[in-house]
């Protein structure tokens, strides 16, 4: 049980306070971008390419202009006049806003139709006639890497291939030596499928340019409003839209999951049109556009190898990645980490030798590479190490739980230096796995499995004991477009003792309005219900890098605690003045200072705040406000031990997840109810790629499942009963000992499910299947091994 330092009335850390924001959400009073309606607002729809790769011969807008209500059709040639037809990506690559001559992926934006209603805009879109000359698309990333393949990015002067970047970490020579001498080496080729975040709310914006005041207000679905304001200023500064003239407002967001970090062409077109016509322009994607054109996630092809002894000691790993980025590298990684934090791929295990390398390649597919509920490629890394750990256990015939126990980094060995250069802050992996095994009844399940196998029934048990790396990040290594990855909090306490707190992050469902208030309540003793949290308006909130990569609690949450402690120090000075004692004679307990040994001599935080406006010592600055920009000294390393049990129908290949136990270590917990909700949602987004989701393209680059009819987002019906629990090892370097939890379940669960399915099928010689593992795939694997119908 979690021990709380504050009363329920204050509701500091550890209280399952109900979410403050839910009062409006459950009454249908959330305020999203599509709820914004401005006077004279125009509507935009976008004509998109049916081809993955084609020359544009002609765009005929005459029929579209005849549609009643259509006021303009914008093409790349129109934007070219203002030099607005290209934009940078967050990875310092380049991307067309609208094409002038070539389309590079199916569903790429080709022309924008502006109309007086949403319906007229769609009618106009259907009437734009584009003449294309289709070309042979390059879809397979391995083929795209072939030097004989045609160069796709001919817009880049001197580009002679489709290679984007090479990146590596670890010790190549040492790794090769260990591999060459190892008694056991296992190897698998795996694909982490291209998937899509599919948040309930699609992307969209209202661009409102005021010609008189030369000022742009951009209401938009973004997880990172401040950074995007800077990007817009960089793109449009040359036409007079400098940063002080731009206000970005991110209202309520219906799910982000990394898909609302990038800048999409639609945003830039809407700004350009509003700038040109002087009226507000609304652009809201429909579901198919969102799925087909917006940034994908994952799509890593990994050659994974593990070396070890015959007895089960892991000695080294080697991972070689081919990253398919589509038309442009539109990922959202920190600048120095083009493959994100993939080098966490040595996982939870104590071995000293590893080498990881990655190459990125252009293809004729939509751009992206966003971190879908994942701290930059950690999901791919976790899948590789956890699959290979099971693969190794299978090879030497050792129980995969015991093999993990024998290889875990010990809790007394933290801080632990990984062979790829990370310093893990804390953890107790043995305790986590033991707890998961106890809850699931591991020994009994293994006995049951033996009995079932004797009867010809298929049952599997899968484990994933992952280590995450989140909370980017320390300024010495982490930046986006040069801006260091700090985050911020500003607390302003009013004379009556109630507060408003503003942050550089932006909640998309995480519950910041509640958890940030609880952190401040913990530090100041002001009831959380009296603390109003605001985010998302660049005119009022302090600059921050935004919410993704499980970074809000590690960075902005830390900033809240530090800012609150600055205020507590001020309160102590005022208390000493009012009680006429020295500061050293005062003792704090949440909500009040009292004189040591004389608890009746007391001043509450509310009295002290009031005094900060009415009766403060000479020479002290009036008011009760503090701001902090928090630069984390290290990343945080949440971990988890997940166990999944599956039963497989050997006639249909049907997979039933019978049990799923998730034991998480996210350090100190701010709100247990919210953490449990995060874990439930994350686990469901983990079964998604494990069993259901993948964006599938044919050889011509056509998407084969471009609607939710065929892109299978799991629902409550597909979700097993999640059994959750915790081990707590506080982060030693974080002000409140928290580590972040939003992504652990999404990152950690896919290999648990895959391992369970492979465990069930392993008696037939099946050692690996790529996710998503579907009934059809199971049936086919059994058939290929001659095991179907046996």
């Amino acid at each position, binding site marked *: 049980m979690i021990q709380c330092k504050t009363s329920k009335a204050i509701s500091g850390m550890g209280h399952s306070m109900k979410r403050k924001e839910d009062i409006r959400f459950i009454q249908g009073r959330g305020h999203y971008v599509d709820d914004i309606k401005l006077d004279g607002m125009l509507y935009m729809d976008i004509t998109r390419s049916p081809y993955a790769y084609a020359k544009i011969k002609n765009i005929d807008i005459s029929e579209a202009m005849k549609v009643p209500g259509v006021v303009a059709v914008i093409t790349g040639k129109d934007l070219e006049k203002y030099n607005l037809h290209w934009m940078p990506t967050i990875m310092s690559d380049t991307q067309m806003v609208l094409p002038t001559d070539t389309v590079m992926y199916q569903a790429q934006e080709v022309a924008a139709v502006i109309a007086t209603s949403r319906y007229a805009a769609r009618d106009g879109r259907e009437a734009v006639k584009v003449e294309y000359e289709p070309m042979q698309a390059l879809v397979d990333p391995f083929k795209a890497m072939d030097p004989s393949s045609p160069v796709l990015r001919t817009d880049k002067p001197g580009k002679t291939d489709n290679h984007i970047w090479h990146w590596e970490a670890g010790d190549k020579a040492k790794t090769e030596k260990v591999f060459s001498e190892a008694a056991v080496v296992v190897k698998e080729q795996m694909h982490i499928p291209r998937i899509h975040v599919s948040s309930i709310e699609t992307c969209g914006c209202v661009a409102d340019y005021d010609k008189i005041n030369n000022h742009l207000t951009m209401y938009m679905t973004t997880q990172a409003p401040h950074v995007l304001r800077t990007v817009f200023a960089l793109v449009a500064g040359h036409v007079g839209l400098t940063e002080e003239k731009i206000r970005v407002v991110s209202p309520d967001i219906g799910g982000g999951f990394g898909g609302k970090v990038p800048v999409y062409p639609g945003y830039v077109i809407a700004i350009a049109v509003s700038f040109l016509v002087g009226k507000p322009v609304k652009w809201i994607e*429909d579901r198919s556009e969102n799925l087909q054109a917006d940034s994908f996630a994952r799509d890593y092809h990994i050659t994974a190898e593990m070396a070890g002894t015959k007895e089960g000691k892991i000695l080294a790993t080697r991972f070689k990645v081919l990253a398919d980025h589509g038309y442009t590298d539109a990922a959202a990684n920190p600048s120095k980490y083009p493959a994100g934090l993939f080098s966490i791929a040595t996982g939870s295990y104590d071995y000293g030798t590893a080498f990881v390398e990655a190459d990125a390649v252009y293809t004729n597919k939509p751009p992206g590479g966003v971190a879908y509920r994942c701290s930059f490629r950690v999901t791919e890394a976790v899948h590789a190490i956890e699959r290979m750990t099971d693969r190794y256990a299978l090879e030497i015939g050792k129980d995969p739980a015991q093999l993990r126990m024998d290889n875990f980094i010990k809790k007394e060995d933290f801080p632990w230096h990984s062979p790829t250069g990370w310093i893990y802050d804390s953890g107790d992996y043995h305790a986590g796995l033991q707890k998961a095994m106890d809850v699931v009844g591991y020994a009994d399940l293994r006995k049951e499995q033996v009995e079932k196998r004797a009867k010809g029934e298929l049952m599997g048990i899968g484990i994933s004991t992952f280590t995450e790396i989140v909370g980017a990040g320390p300024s010495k290594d982490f930046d986006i477009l040069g801006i260091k990855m700090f985050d911020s909090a500003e607390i302003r306490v009013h004379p009556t003792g109630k507060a408003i707190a503003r942050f550089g992050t932006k909640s998309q469902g995480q519950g910041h309005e509640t958890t940030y208030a609880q952190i401040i309540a913990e530090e100041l003793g002001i009831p959380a219900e009296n603390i109003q949290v605001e985010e998302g308006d660049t005119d009022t909130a302090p600059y921050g890098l935004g919410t993704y990569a499980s970074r809000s609690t590690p960075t902005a949450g830390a900033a809240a605690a530090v800012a609150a402690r600055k205020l507590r120090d001020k309160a102590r000075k005022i208390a000493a003045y009012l009680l006429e004692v020295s500061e050293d004679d005062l003792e704090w307990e949440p909500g009040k200072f009292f004189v040591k040994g004389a608890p009746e001599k007391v001043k509450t935080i509310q009295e002290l705040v009031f005094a900060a406006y009415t009766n403060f010592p000479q020479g002290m600055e009036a008011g009760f406000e503090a701001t902090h920009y928090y630069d984390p000294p290290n990343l945080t390393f949440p971990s988890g031990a997940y166990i999944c049990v599956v039963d497989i129908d050997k006639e249909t290949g049907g997979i039933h997840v019978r049990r799923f136990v998730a034991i998480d270590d996210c350090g100190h917990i701010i709100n247990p109810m919210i953490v449990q909700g995060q874990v439930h949602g994350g686990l469901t987004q983990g079964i998604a790629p494990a069993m259901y989701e993948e964006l599938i393209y044919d050889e011509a680059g056509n998407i084969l499942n471009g*609607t939710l009819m065929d892109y*299978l987002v799991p629902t409550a019906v597909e979700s097993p009963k999640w059994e959750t629990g915790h081990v707590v090892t506080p982060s030693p370097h974080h002000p409140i000992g928290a580590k972040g939890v939003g992504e652990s379940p999404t990152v950690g669960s896919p290999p648990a499910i895959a391992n369970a399915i492979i465990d069930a099928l392993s008696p037939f010689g099946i050692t690996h299947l790529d996710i998503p593992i579907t009934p059809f795939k199971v049936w086919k694997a059994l058939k290929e091994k001659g095991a179907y119908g046996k």
Partner: protein
Amino acid sequence: MIAQSFQYASPGTLAEAISMLDKYGEDAKVLSGGHSLIPMMKLRFANPEWLIDINGIPNLAHIKEEGGVIKIGALTREAEIEHSDLLKKYFPIFADVTKLIADPQVRNRGTVGGNLAHGDAANDHPAVMLALNATIVATGSNGERSIAIDEFFHGFYMTALEHGEILTEIQIPEPPAGTGSAYHKLERKVGDYATAGVAVQLTLDSKGVCTAAGFGLTNVNPVPLRASRSEKALVGKSITDETIAEAAKYASEDCSPSSDLRGSEEYKRAMVAVLVKRMIHKAVERISK
């Protein structure tokens, strides 16, 4: 939804609706539950100029028994079928099938008549109605006519319904004692069309000999398919592992599935065989209860 603009009419009588259909011809579509038509309009695959909404017409939603025939009004919602005591008494297959059609929200609006009139072999009721030997009643300006279910499905989105005709009722013969039925489909997730689906109704005499058999298959053929050879394999025989295997083999051979994201042709044939076997067992189990 951002459909093309269209005209909407909500006639109060069947005669009025039929006269509107006659008047607007090919430009008009009947709106029943809307759960096939509206998504197609949203994607602009269907662009009718007129929507004739039949939801305001009385006496089209009923489940009743008359003279040994069970009559289901075309406007009857899936949810009403799911919970009907009369249907539960004679046809446990309806509880099987409705639970597998989309989700509760869709079942509250979607109608059995629309599910059949859409003429889509991926829909679930066609196979069920084939297994139950239903008769379709269509009403047009010349009055009512009955169409045997085997004559009803003509092709992809094509049925025996003429322009100006509305599917108004489904009639199913009350089954004799010793009858059991069952349906199941494999789907990738809830609300999906079937990877393969099988509907079975069997009648056994007191000695366990099969006197009647109906088999309908979902989404493994361009049109909803009756598995006739499977039926013949059972009638006049006892239900044994051998006769079941024969029925399963015939159904998997006689269907014509296409490979797609749901699975290969070979997989779908194999699944038809598995489902035929399982549904026969389930139907027989229900008879013995």
